[in-house]
Each structure stands twice: as structure tokens, then as C-alpha cells.
């Protein structure tokens, strides 16, 4: 017989047993996962928080907007009916510049007239472009590539500086041979003095460098005075694609309430010397008044100064879109900015900074709002103002520049039914954003803390719970064998705990205890039963004997014989019941009597005895003479063999062949008894070694199914296992006892 095949079948057998009784494992979430999933629902809280902060922001923005509207309207009503403030003649003529630009820059140091154009450009501040089609006196055929003008002005204590960058495809300077002054590239300056007197000055030159200035008649052709003026000084500096012009005008020369207008005249054809294009710094050249001169009124600024709102820019405009006064800025003061002074940082603080950066990115730091805020938003302001002036109503709007938010309200200023101008207030929502940011930051930190704490707490709790449940499960599983026999009657782990798991443990313990008692009762039942049966059996037996004794003639009576047979069978049943019941106790008691003996010899002797006792059968030992030493109780092993042989005979075929095998390998000694009887019935194959399980169908053969149970008890007391399977290849059943090798070799 192939031993490896045999082992495989044995393993199959064990696996089959295991699968029959193993606990069903279902796929699915474990407690810990479930709890952590539950914790993840907490992530809704930051979303809620974020939403509520957003709501709050909206609410606050509305509040801010209303406050701003009120401020605007307040300013406009204060300025109402104060035509004097908007009178062009009133105010200091200091501020001159582009029509809608910001107030002129004030310079600390005067600009040298011979300084390079680059120095001027840098010092004088932002240049306004005069290239837009239709805005200026350019005509329908204006081409920006032929002429473009960028211009700015600045002030210092006693001078006004004007700077021009002129893109001209062809620079045509004054021809010294020609008398006329106007047949070349030139700049015309018109000054309306406070008295209303208008003077026209033509600035022209024959070569780069100093510019000559002439007072002209209104036709710009004839000179009032042939002498060049010394008050106004200018230089021309050729540049790439054109030239730059620097002009210096003494403020004394202008006087009080003066207005300025510059026109850049372009001549491209050196032969015809015709004027091709004029670009004016004045949007409405047809008006008589020189609208280009913007006069900021200090009184106006003084009036609105007390109404200043934090991070707000208040501008007062006249009806011609000219800024008359400006207070405040939408940018926060530097110290309120969010930048950090760079310093040496440890690794930890660097991580912290990274974290904070990420934080700011997530929470949309208001610092970005500051960055995104445009320096100049005059175009949008103009659009809003034109609507205000057109409709005569207050208008409020919110603007977004990237992350920056701006609230803008504009209100008209009325004077005796005429619209005198408008007040425009811009306020950054930055303050709100930073408030929101701080709230979110605090909230997020708090939430993160709570989330981490809760997460860890629940993880610990769940781990502990899982551990306890796992332990309970293990102990419960260990409390009984896969066959369902109880190994212990209480569960120790966690039984003291006061929670539900503890009470579950106690319940299981109680259940096991009850089950144990019941099992004990069941195990004792055969013994009790046997004991109780002995007395009536004795009555029947002794009565029969008395009957026979008193009536000798009945001794051959068939009914009496049958009665005695019945008593005999009853008696053997009871005996086997008590044998099994007392065996368990006896086995534990006898374990100390273990000795090392030759199993092969014992089996061979026994087989000889069986052969003698059952001459009708052939009982054959099928193993070598070599001793197989084993540690055990020989009497019990012999008893086990008795039962194996009894079983083989009982379920084998009449006068059949019974083979006894003894094999040994590294781990096990396998003793098997094979018969040639019918196969094992499927329905009891698994329970064959349980008490009171028998496949016998013959009513007259007394079989309680205790034989193989005794085999199992003895095998288990020797730490072995038993199994029964149908023989391969031939009819019959093989019952095998596998005992672990525990050999102490003698010598």
C-alpha cells in the first residue's frame, strides 16, 4: 500500500472534519473598520463649519456693503449743494494730470532737465497711455503704430514736471531753413490761468536737446513774441521708435487755478510737412474749457477726511470724471499685512511653515486677496461712475480680482438739481476675509485636534474591543472540540468586565457550565441507567433460575431458553455501557501507569488470541517483526484492539479476512484494522466514533456503538486520533488509530 496516498487521504479526512465544524467566516467589515468609517462621518463637520463661515461671510459682506452705502450717501449729502467745491476756479492749481488718473505724484527731489529719459520715467510714476481709438482727437484714420503717446506729470515744491514718451515712426524736427514753427513734430501746451486768460505755447526744436518755447497766437501759426521763453524748459531725447520729451514748468508761472492741456503734433512727410496727427491729453477737445486740468480741492479732502473708513478708498469725482479728492487706500497698512519676517528656521518650524502654507492654500489666505488686489481700478470706477451719472442713482457692486474682493459704492452729488459729481467709495473685504480666515483657522485646528483625538480614541477602543471579541471567540472556540465535546466549562478572559461584552462572556460561561453539567449528566446517564437496570435484571435472572431449579423438567423449555438468552443480551448491553462510562475515569487515573512497551509484540499476541477465539475468521497481522516501542498503558491498548477486532468482525463479512496493519513514520504510529465488509454508511461516517452510534441493522446483534467510542477514548488518552474510511481498491472498511511517536529507545 502506498503510504503517501494513505497520508493524503488522512489529511483529506481531517480537512473534511475541519470543514464540517469550522466556524463560518463571512466577508465584511470588521468592528474597527466600521467604527473608523463612522468617525470619518465627522469629516462632515468641517464642511459644515466651512459652509457656515461662508454664510457668515456673505452676511457680513452685506452688512459691510450697507455700511459702505450709508457712508457713501452721507458723503454725497455732505458734499451736496456745495458747487463751490467743484468750481474749477476754487482750489489749488497744483494737481494737473490726465483726466481720470490718480493724483499727481509729489517728488522730494527736483528732476534735472538733462537727466536721461529713463530716470524721469522711473521717478515720475505711472504713465497714462494715449493710444486708444476714439477717445482722443485722432481722427478716423488714426493708426497706433504711427503715433502713440505715454504721459505723466509730477510735482515738487515749486516745479511741475511733465514727461512724454512718444512713439513715432518718423521723427521730423524743425528745419532751420524754414521759418514756420508748426511744420514739424511739436508739442502744444495750452494754459488757462485762474483769471481765465488763455496762453498757447509751442515747444519745438531743430535737434535733440533743448527745446525752444514760443508764445503763439490762437491759430498756432504766428508767434506773439519772436523771443523764445525761458520759463518753460524742455529737452528732447530720441529713443527707440520715437523720442522722449521732458518739460519743467515753474508753478509760479502757472499761478492759481490754472488748467493745462498738451497736444502732441505729428508730422511725417518732410517734403509737404503737413500735420498728420494730433493727440491731446484732453478727451473733449471741442469744449472750450480745458477739462484736462484736474484740480484736487483740499477743502473737499478735508471734508471727507473724518469719514474715512478702514481699508477704504474714498474718491470724489466731478461730472467730468475728474478726481477732485481722494482719501485712504484699499490696502491695509503694512503692519497689518500677513507676511512673516524671514528668519533662521529649524527643521520643525519649517515643517510647521509648510503645514501653514498648505493651510493657507486650503483656507484661501487673505494674503492672496491682498496680492490680487489691483493697484489701479480706474477703468471699472469710470464705468460705474458713468452709470451713476447717467442714472442719477446710488449703485453698489462687488468686484472680484482673483481672491481679492472689493465693495464699491457710488453715489451722485447734487447741487440745486444739477449733478455736480459723484462720490465713490471702495472698500476691500480683506478685513472680513482675514476674520473669516482666522475663524476657519481656529476652527480647523480645533477640529483637527478633536478629529485626531476621537480617531485615536475610537481606534484604541475598537482595537481593544476587537481584541476582546477575538479573545472571546478564540476561547469559545477552544472550549469545545470540533466534534462538539466540551473541553472547559468557563471562559476566563474578560469575564470581570462590567460592560456588555463582559456579560456576554459571563453568559457564554454560564452556557458552557450548563452545557458541561448536561454533558456530565449525559455521560453519567449510561452508568446510572446500567445501575438502575441491574436490579430488575437481577430479579428476572434469579426468578428464571429459581423457576428452572424448582421445575427441572422445564430446563430444556425453548421459551425459558429464549428468556435466558434475552437476559444475557441485556446483561452484555449493560456491561458495555458501564465499561465505556467507567473507562473515561479509569484512563485519566491510569495515565501514570504508562510504560514503554513493544506495540508490535502486543498486537501480534492479541491477534493470535483473537484468531483462537474466532476460528471462523482469518485474522492476519500484516507487519514486520521489528519492535515498535510506544509509551502507553498496554492493557488499554489491548482493550482498544479488542474493540477494533470486535468491530471488524461485527461489520465484516461472515468468516471473512481481517488484516491488522502497523506502520510507523517520523511522527505517527498507525495501527489499522481492515475488514472486507460493506462500506461505511455516509450518514454516520462522521460520528462513527461518538457513543451510541452504530450502523448495525441486525436487531439480534447487540451493538450499542460503544466499541469505537472506547477506541477513541483510549486513542485520545494516548494523544492519538482515530479515523474510519472505506478501503481503496477493494471492499471493506479501514479503521486507523494514529498514535504520536513517543519512543525511548532502550540501549
Amino acid at each position, binding site marked *: 500500500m502506498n503510504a503517501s496516498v494513505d497520508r493524503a487521504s488522512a489529511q483529506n479526512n481531517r480537512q473534511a472534519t475541519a470543514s464540517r465544524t469550522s466556524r463560518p467566516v463571512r466577508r465584511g467589515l470588521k468592528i474597527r473598520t466600521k467604527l473608523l468609517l463612522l468617525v470619518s462621518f465627522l469629516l462632515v463637520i468641517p464642511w459644515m463649519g466651512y459652509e457656515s463661515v461662508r454664510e457668515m461671510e456673505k452676511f457680513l459682506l452685506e452688512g459691510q456693503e450697507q455700511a459702505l452705502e450709508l457712508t457713501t450717501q452721507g458723503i454725497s449729502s455732505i458734499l451736496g449743494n456745495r458747487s463751490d467745491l467743484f468750481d474749477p476756479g476754487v482750489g489749488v492749481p497744483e494737481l494737473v494730470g490726465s483726466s481720470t488718473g490718480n493724483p499727481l505724484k509729489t517728488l522730494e527731489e527736483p528732476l534735472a532737465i538733462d537727466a536721461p529719459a529713463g530716470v524721469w520715467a522711473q521717478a515720475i510714476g505711472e504713465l497714462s497711455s494715449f493710444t486708444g481709438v476714439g477717445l482722443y482727437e485722432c481722427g478716423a484714420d488714426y493708426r497706433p503704430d504711427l503715433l502713440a503717446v505715454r504721459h505723466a506729470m509730477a510735482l515738487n515744491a515749486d516745479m511741475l514736471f511733465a514727461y512724454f514718451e512718444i512713439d513715432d515712426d518718423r521723427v521730423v524736427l524743425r528745419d532751420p531753413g524754414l521759418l514756420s514753427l508748426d511744420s514739424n513734430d511739436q508739442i502744444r501746451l495750452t494754459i488757462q490761468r485762474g483769471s481765465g486768460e488763455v496762453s498757447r505755447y509751442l515747444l519745438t526744436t531743430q535737434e535733440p536737446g533743448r527745446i525752444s518755447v514760443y508764445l503763439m497766437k490762437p491759430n498756432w501759426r504766428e508767434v506773439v513774441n519772436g523771443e523764445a521763453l525761458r520759463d518753460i524748459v524742455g529737452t528732447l531725447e530720441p529713443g527707440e521708435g520715437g523720442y522722449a520729451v521732458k518739460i519743467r514748468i515753474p508753478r509760479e508761472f502757472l499761478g492759481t487755478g490754472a488748467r493745462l492741456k498738451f497736444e502732441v503734433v505729428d508730422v511725417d512727410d518732410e517734403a509737404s510737412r503737413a500735420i498728420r496727427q494730433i493727440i491731446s491729453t484732453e478727451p473733449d477737445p471741442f469744449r472750450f474749457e480745458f477739462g484736462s486740468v484736474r484740480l484736487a480741492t483740499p477743502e473737499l479732502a478735508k471734508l471727507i477726511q473724518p469719514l474715512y473708513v478702514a481699508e477704504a478708498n474714498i474718491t470724489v469725482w466731478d461730472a467730468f470724471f475728474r478726481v477732485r479728492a481722494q482719501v485712504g487706500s484699499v490696502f491695509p497698512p503694512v503692519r497689518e499685512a500677513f507676511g512673516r519676517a524671514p528668519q533662521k528656521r529649524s527643521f520643525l518650524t519649517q515643517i510647521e511653515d509648510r503645514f501653514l502654507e498648505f493651510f493657507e492654500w486650503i483656507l484661501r489666505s487673505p494674503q492672496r486677496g491682498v496680492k490680487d488686489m489691483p493697484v489701479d481700478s480706474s477703468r471699472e470706477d469710470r464705468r460705474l461712475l458713468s452709470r451713476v451719472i447717467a442714472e442719477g442713482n446710488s449703485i453698489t457692486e462687488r468686484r472680484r480680482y482673483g481672491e481679492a474682493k472689493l465693495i464699491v459704492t457710488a453715489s451722485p452729488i447734487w447741487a440745486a438739481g444739477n449733478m455736480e459729481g459723484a462720490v465713490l467709495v471702495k472698500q476691500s473685504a480683506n478685513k472680513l476675509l482675514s476674520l473669516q480666515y482666522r475663524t476657519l483657522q481656529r476652527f480647523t485646528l480645533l477640529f483637527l485636534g478633536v478629529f485626531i483625538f476621537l480617531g485615536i480614541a475610537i481606534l484604541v477602543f475598537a482595537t481593544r474591543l476587537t481584541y476582546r471579541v477575538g479573545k472571546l471567540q478564540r476561547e469559545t472556540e477552544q472550549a469545545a472540540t470540533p466534534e462538539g465535546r466540551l473541553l472547559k466549562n468557563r471562559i476566563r478572559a474578560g469575564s470581570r468586565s462590567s460592560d456588555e461584552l463582559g456579560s456576554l462572556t459571563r453568559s457564554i460561561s454560564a452556557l458552557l457550565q450548563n452545557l458541561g453539567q448536561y454533558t456530565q449528566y449525559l455521560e453519567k446517564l449510561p452508568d446510572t441507567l446500567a*445501575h438502575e437496570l441491574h436490579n430488575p435484571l437481577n430479579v428476572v435472572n434469579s426468578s428464571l433460575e429459581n423457576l428452572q431449579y424448582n421445575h427441572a423438567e422445564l430446563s430444556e423449555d425453548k421459551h425459558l431458553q429464549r428468556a435466558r438468552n434475552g437476559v444475557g443480551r441485556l446483561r452484555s448491553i449493560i456491561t458495555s455501557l458501564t465499561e465505556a462510562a467507567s473507562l473515561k475515569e479509569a484512563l485519566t487515573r491510569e495515565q501514570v501507569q504508562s510504560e514503554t512497551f513493544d506495540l508490535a509484540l502486543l498486537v501480534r499476541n492479541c491477534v493470535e488470541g483473537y484468531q483462537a477465539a474466532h476460528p471462523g475468521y482469518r485474522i492476519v497481522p500484516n507487519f514486520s517483526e521489528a519492535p515498535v516501542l510506544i509509551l502507553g498503558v498496554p492493557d488499554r491498548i489491548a*482493550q482498544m484492539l479488542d474493540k477494533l477486532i470486535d468491530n471488524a468482525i461485527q461489520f465484516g463479512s461472515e468468516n471473512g479476512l481481517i488484516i491488522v496493519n502497523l506502520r510507523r513514520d517520523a511522527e505517527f504510529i498507525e495501527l489499522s484494522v481492515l475488514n472486507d465488509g460493506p462500506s461505511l454508511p455516509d450518514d454516520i461516517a462522521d460520528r462513527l466514533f461518538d457513543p451510541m452510534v452504530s450502523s448495525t441493522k441486525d436487531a439480534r446483534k447487540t451493538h450499542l456503538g460503544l466499541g469505537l467510542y472506547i477506541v477513541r477514548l483510549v486513542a485520545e488518552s494516548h494523544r492519538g486520533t482515530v479515523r474510519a474510511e472505506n478501503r481503496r481498491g477493494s471492499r471493506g472498511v479501514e479503521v486507523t488509530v494514529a498514535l504520536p511517536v513517543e519512543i525511548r529507545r532502550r540501549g
Partner: protein
Amino acid sequence: MPTVIAIVEDDPDQRENYSDVLKSHGYEVRTYADRPSAEAGFARELPNLALLDIMLGEDMDGGFDLCMQLRNMSPTLPIIFLTARDSDADRISSQRMTAWDYITKPVSLEFLVARVHALLKISDQLQSAPTASTTVSVGALELNEDSMLVRWKGQSVSLTLTEFWIIESLTRNPGHVRTYDALSDVTRQGLVERNTINGYIRRIRNKFRELDESFDRIQTVHGTGYKWEQGSA
């Protein structure tokens, strides 16, 4: 003088059956159903032999109590326990009270009568002086069939009647195997399982080992039976 046998058994059917068979063999029989009546009866008249059930109605160990009382009254009175209880503990208790025999139910009446005969005979022998002629020596073992006396290396071994019969059977032919069937006959209990024989042998060995730890004369011939190994001594 008639031989009086006392039967203490709570079950009337069994009691009467024992009584009937013993009467028919010419013995006088006194039957008692419980301990008080038995005590009263023993006080009136001491029987020649007592047949006791251990469990008497509710009285779990009534038989043992009676045995002790009887033993106090007469050190040589043969006492047989006839009981359904088959535990080692009960057997040891009975031995401690120097009962002469311990039979488990169901008992064959025929064998019961034989045992009663045998014990009465031994009792008679003990009352007269034991005759050395009936003593058999097998090595260190001395055996007196008439008085059921066994000595191992000069020390008396207290055996029940059945155990004595088994020893006698084993030593009758030392070195030869006594099969289970032969031993079963010797016990005079009707059909006896191998396991029961094993039990007897185990108890006999234990009794010898109490006196002599190295006792190993009774050897198991697995699957067949037992033999008395003569040994060198």
C-alpha cells in the same frame, strides 16, 4: 444446628428469590429490607453468613454500615456484598471492612449458592485450627485453600473470594497461561467480560504491590489471558 443466612436487600423480588434458592439448599434464611430491621435482627441472632446489598432504599451506604456492625460483633463472620454498584471505590470500601466477597448483579443463583457454600466452609475452617497440610507454596506465595489465606513473602494478603480463586487458578500451573475463558469460569459469575477479568487482575496486583512494590508475578499475555511467573526466588 441449622446454618442461618441473613439477607439484607431492599428489593422484595430479589430478596425472595435469594431466599427461595438458599432455603431450597437447606439453609435457614432471615430476610431484612432495611438497616434498622437488620440491626434488630442481628442483635437477636447473629447469622452464620450475611448477604448485603450496599444501597438500602434511601440509605446509600446502608450495607457498609451493617457490615461494620457485623464485623464488630464477629471478626470471622463471612460477609458477601451483592450489589449493582461496580466502582473501584465501592470495592475498596468493602475490602477495608473485610468483607469476604463482592459480587455484582446480576448474579447467577447457582454461583451464589456455590459461593455461600465455599465461604461457610472456609469460615468453619477458620474456627477450627488451620491444617498445614492444605497449604500450598508457590515460591514466596503461600496459599491455604481451606481458610482462603494468602501470604506473600510471609505477609498476609487480604483477598476476596473471587480474587482468591483467580490466584489459585493462576498458581495451580505456574508459568502457564490462563486464558480469559478459563479465568471467567474460575470467577463463578457466569459470563464475564475480559475487561472484568482485567479489573480483577488489576486489583489483585494492587493488593500485592501494597505489600511489595516490586511485585510482578502476574503477567499479562495480551489477547489471551494471564500467567503466574514463577520467578527465580
